[in-house]
């Protein structure tokens, strides 16, 4: 098992109010799986993704990725862990505007012990994967929205991470461009064996994933298994 999530609870304090989007969530993801996550706005999809990506910490519960328990390690070690193990694809590409496509993709490699030649080789491969080799020296503002998102994807896969998470990667794109990006993600999964976890609002997009999850009212529902088996039990169960 690549990712093991056990009894994850995350709440936020908003003034006097406590919001608990994730309540006792458990989930297993295998290496090489392509998992999509749907659900109404504000249910905690991004929150779950961020816990797995190691940029946020839960209040309770554990997340183990490839044998590393990431919920208890220090902030600085967690950063190192992210550099080597996680690729993050944002809704808006979030490229660094002052850097070229090439430099943006190279950025995560600077944190790892690769020499210049090795970095160049890896950036080349990543840019080839997203078919943007000819735009390597372009700045983000010189690229279209779809191209920017592809650079963002190249940046996420360039370190060959254990897991790639994508938070609504097509949320800002028109349908034709979306289709292109989804196709690309699917190929990454099938050709390179990248483990993918994608949050989306689009049922068609979710459908390309091998496994489709739904987060609703604190519960995680596996739509792939038609019987709507409850992977996660929460206090919310009583509401059903």
């Amino acid at each position, binding site marked *: 098992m690549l990712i093991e999530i056990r009894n994850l609870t995350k709440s936020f304090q908003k003034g006097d109010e406590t919001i608990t989007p994730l309540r006792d969530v458990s989930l297993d993801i295998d290496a090489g799986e392509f998992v999509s996550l749907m659900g109404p706005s504000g249910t905690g999809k991004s929150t779950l993704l961020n816990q797995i990506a190691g940029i946020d910490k839960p209040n309770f519960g554990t997340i183990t990725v490839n044998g590393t328990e990431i919920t208890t390690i220090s902030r600085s070690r967690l950063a190192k862990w992210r550099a080597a193990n996680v690729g993050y694809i944002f809704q808006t590409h979030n490229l660094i505007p002052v850097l070229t496509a090439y430099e943006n993709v190279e*950025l995560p490699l600077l944190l790892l012990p690769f020499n210049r030649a090795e970095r160049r080789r890896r950036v080349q491969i990543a840019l080839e994967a997203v078919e943007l080799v000819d735009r390597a020296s372009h700045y983000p503002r010189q690229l279209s929205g779809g191209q920017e998102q592809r650079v963002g994807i190249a*940046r996420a896969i360039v370190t060959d991470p254990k897991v790639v998470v994508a938070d609504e990667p097509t949320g800002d794109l028109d349908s034709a461009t979306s289709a292109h990006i989804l196709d690309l993600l699917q190929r990454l999964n099938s050709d390179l064996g990248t483990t993918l976890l994608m949050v989306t609002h689009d049922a068609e997009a979710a459908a390309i994933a091998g496994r489709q999850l739904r987060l609703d009212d604190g519960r995680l529902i596996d739509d792939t298994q038609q019987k709507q088996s409850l992977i996660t039990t929460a206090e919310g169960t009583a509401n059903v």
Partner: protein
Amino acid sequence: MYKFTPYLVKTLWRHRGRTMLTVSGSAVALFVFCFVGAVQEGLDRLTSQNDSTLIVFQANKFCPATSHLPQDYDQIIRKMPGVREVVPIQVFTNNCRASLDVVVFYGVPAKKVQKIRDFELVAGSWSEFKSNQDSGIVGESVARRRNLKLGTKFSVGEVKVTVAGIFNSTDQSEEDYVYTHLDFLQRTPGMNLVGTVTQHEVLLEDSADAVRVAGLIDDEFRAGPVETDTRTKGVFQASSLADLVELIELSHYLGYACVGLMTMLISTTTFMAVQDRIKEHSVLQTLGFSGSIVFALVLAESILISVGGGVVGTGAAMLTLAGSGLSVGAEAVTIAFSPSVGLALTGLVGSLAVGIAAGVLPAVAAARADIINGLRQA
């Protein structure tokens, strides 16, 4: 860290207007700091001069124009224990009050100049000077300031001198003086100075106790004909410049204030840069940049700006100091403003320190910012 240089430089370049303004502001601050530092250094050089030289002046007189000592005092002083050499000096200055354009003539027995000073002629010759009564050798600073060349005739008041040589000296402040023949200066039209001098300069043996010899000299002449006041050269110069000392000390504080201002300027710019890029820093941290790397990046930005300003400001100050030969003087003692390696280093190291001081707070803020909050920003 060098791997991040393109990112750093491009980030600064992206906001080049802001960067240039901050660098310029820092440069101005450091220019002022170095400039007042040079004045302070010049003053320190004058007042800390070694104790092996005494200046004998007329008691209760301050301006060289009013001090008149019998020239033959030198014979009496010469015989005192610990005295190596006595030089009678007639001082003439165009301005006894504090001024930026002071020209000071030292009338000295021509054959003694080389004995008591380490001057090196960069133009002209000693023999030319010694054989011409109305000639003078001028310090490089004066020559530069007044545009004096070999053979130039120039006059200050009634004194008309021809330049027979231009000298430099290991003692910067000496380059602000013009040395002439003693008897020539004594015979200046309109002044009845023959037989009297402004002061005697007494060179002591290494073993001599300066304070004791000064006491002996003053005791000797207490009964007249003219009472003396003898101090070491450093103390004498400090008291001549007394009015300026406080002003210079004050300006020194202004120099520090400039550095403080520079710190805040750079800090503000860096804080703005951090606030502009809250999301960018969160993205970097998401990619795996640790808080310490973000800290280092922001600090490096601040240091680049301040050292940039430091190099420009210090460089401009050194060039100005070297090129202008500026000085300020009072009572015929002048403070030379001159560049020095120490001052340049102080400026550069200071700008580095400012960069660090100014960058720490914004860098901490950036490093500790919450990643999720940053990503949720528009």
